[in-house]
């Protein structure tokens, strides 16, 4: 009987907080991974600047908050502001090398260069130091005898809603059908009257908007600094690769599973070794399935 109590206590006070922790980080990583995977699924572009766009979203929120804008308005305004940024980047940079032979490498290099410039630009504009953003929802809720910060619960709820919304847009609307058609067969979609070039730019902008949204949402939790994107991008890439580049379902499932592995493993091993652990999982998955767990966006 005492053992039973011990087990329940362990579950409740040791595992449950870690699981919730893993879920809240998982939501953040999934939001990043969604943008990455959608951009890759359609354009075949690995966006190395995705972490910097995430940081840009957070910094835009910092600026708007400083100007006296309400946090809830920021949550909508920042992704909207990011859309034209993404559109212009796709038009001005990516389209220029899109028809060359080794466009995979060239677009990766372009977005990498863009990331370098953006990161330094953050230092110029906002300084090198960490900026804190106040939590818009204070307090904590008591669930099953444990306390959870309200804002984290809110982020999880919003994240789940966004994932659902993205899924509905991509798989259940005509707009999504157009995007999937363009990803599946560019020429065919084009000859059926789909403005493929504009679909590409809009999709890129959409992915950037998601990164910006993640930046605003997470700013109160992780605070804002120039290299904030870099710390995150490896996790996001790992999730996307394990899930399968271009797969939305894969990004969500891999995001949840990998972040749970990380959260639970950190109970037993030093946090330093959780990164190699996740990386090892990724390598194993790639050996077993070289294209990740699930198929690409176009084939969804």
């Amino acid at each position, binding site marked *: 009987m005492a053992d039973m109590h011990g087990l329940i206590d362990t579950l409740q006070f040791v595992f449950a907080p870690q699981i919730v922790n893993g879920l809240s980080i998982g939501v953040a990583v999934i939001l990043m991974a969604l943008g990455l995977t959608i951009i890759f699924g359609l354009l075949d572009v*690995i966006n190395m600047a995705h972490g910097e766009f995430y940081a840009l979203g957070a910094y835009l929120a910092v600026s708007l908050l400083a100007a006296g804008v309400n946090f809830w308005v920021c949550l909508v305004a920042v992704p909207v502001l990011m859309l034209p940024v993404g559109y212009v980047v796709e038009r001005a940079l990516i389209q220029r090398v899109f028809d060359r032979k080794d466009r995979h490498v*060239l677009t990766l290099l372009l977005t990498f260069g863009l990331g370098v410039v953006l990161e330094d630009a953050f230092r110029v504009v906002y300084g090198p130091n960490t900026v804190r953003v106040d939590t818009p929802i204070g307090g904590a809720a008591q669930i099953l005898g444990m306390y959870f910060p309200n804002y984290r619960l809110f982020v999880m709820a919003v994240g789940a809603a966004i994932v659902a919304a993205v899924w509905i847009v991509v798989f259940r609307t005509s707009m999504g059908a157009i995007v999937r058609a363009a990803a599946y067969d560019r020429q065919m979609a084009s000859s059926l009257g789909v403005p493929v070039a504009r679909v590409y730019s809009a999709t890129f902008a959409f992915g950037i908007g998601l990164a910006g949204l993640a930046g605003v949402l997470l700013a109160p939790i992780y605070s804002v600094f120039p290299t904030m994107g870099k710390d995150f991008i490896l996790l996001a890439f790992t999730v996307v690769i394990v899930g399968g580049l271009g797969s939305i379902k894969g990004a969500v499932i891999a995001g949840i599973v990998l972040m749970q592995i990380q959260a639970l493993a950190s109970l037993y091993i030093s946090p330093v070794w959780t990164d190699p652990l996740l990386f090892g999982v990724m390598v194993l998955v790639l050996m077993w399935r070289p294209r990740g767990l699930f198929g690409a966006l176009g084939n969804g």
Partner: protein
Amino acid sequence: MADAGSVIEAVRRSEDSRRRSLSAFALAFVAFGVAFAAIAAARGEVFFLRLATEALIFGGLALSADILLGYAGMLSLGQALFFGLGAYVSALVLKNVLPSFWLAMLVTLLVTTLIGLIAAVIATRARGVYFALITFGLAQVVAKVVFNTPSLGASDGIIGVPVIAIDLGVGQVTAASPAAFFLFCLAFIMALYCLCAYLARTPGGRVLAAIRSNEDRVPFLGYPVTRARMLAFVLAADVAALSGALYPVLRGFVSPELLYFEVSGNAIITVIIGGMGTLIGPLYGSALIVVLKSVIGSYTAHHLIVIGSLFVLAVIFFPQGLIGAVRPSLERRFALRAAPLRR
């Protein structure tokens, strides 16, 4: 129909003129280096000689990135892993075992070949962007582990590497003399360059070039793709590590920053700006970037904005880089000299 003989002849001639123009660039690089060392030594410069030595060392890293990107078509975003590995191994040997340069190089070579083989098994299975992302991840993971390992000095790295004298058989070069050590590094890096340029002309090197232009066709011709990619990966790892092994000799310390993505990224920027697929281009690129950094650095601390923008422009407008922009006219001249126009 052109007969096979004349096609082979034309290919050989174009390869000859390409090789000769690249050798001219290499000779010019050595000449610039020697002239620079002479002027700087005569004026008693220390700072600029040290800076130029560092440019050479990072040039060696860029050279290794070019072996993969320019010859095998593999974009590695983690060359800093091997550069840092070389720096750490060499620092540990020099500090804890024996202050002998050649022993440090030998141990670096052995350790890197072993670890490079393991990494090659993991990374070269993947193609294209997967390869890029795996090398990126591999380097990030190792950097994080080193940063948190107290026995490797954690975030401080390894300090207090002794100043050594390098035994050359006929005499000694001391790392304390800026000009002599610069010239030694020039010779060392150029030896690595010559080795790579030679290997690129061997049958194995040609298989790599074939893989780069059409990977699917090569196995049908009976060449082992995976083995060639692995060998290229290990060679690049060794070149990066041997360059990195010079770092503690120059600076007297190593730090985990050497393993960071900035270093890998910088190597790729250097390759693109200098000229990918030329091997000598990255060395020019490294020199150019160090000059740019110190010129821009005298105005602002934010040189990355300028260099990043330059890189983006180079990718769009000059994918052949500095060497590629100059080479065609030089090649035409060589072709004319080799074979005066016959009608």
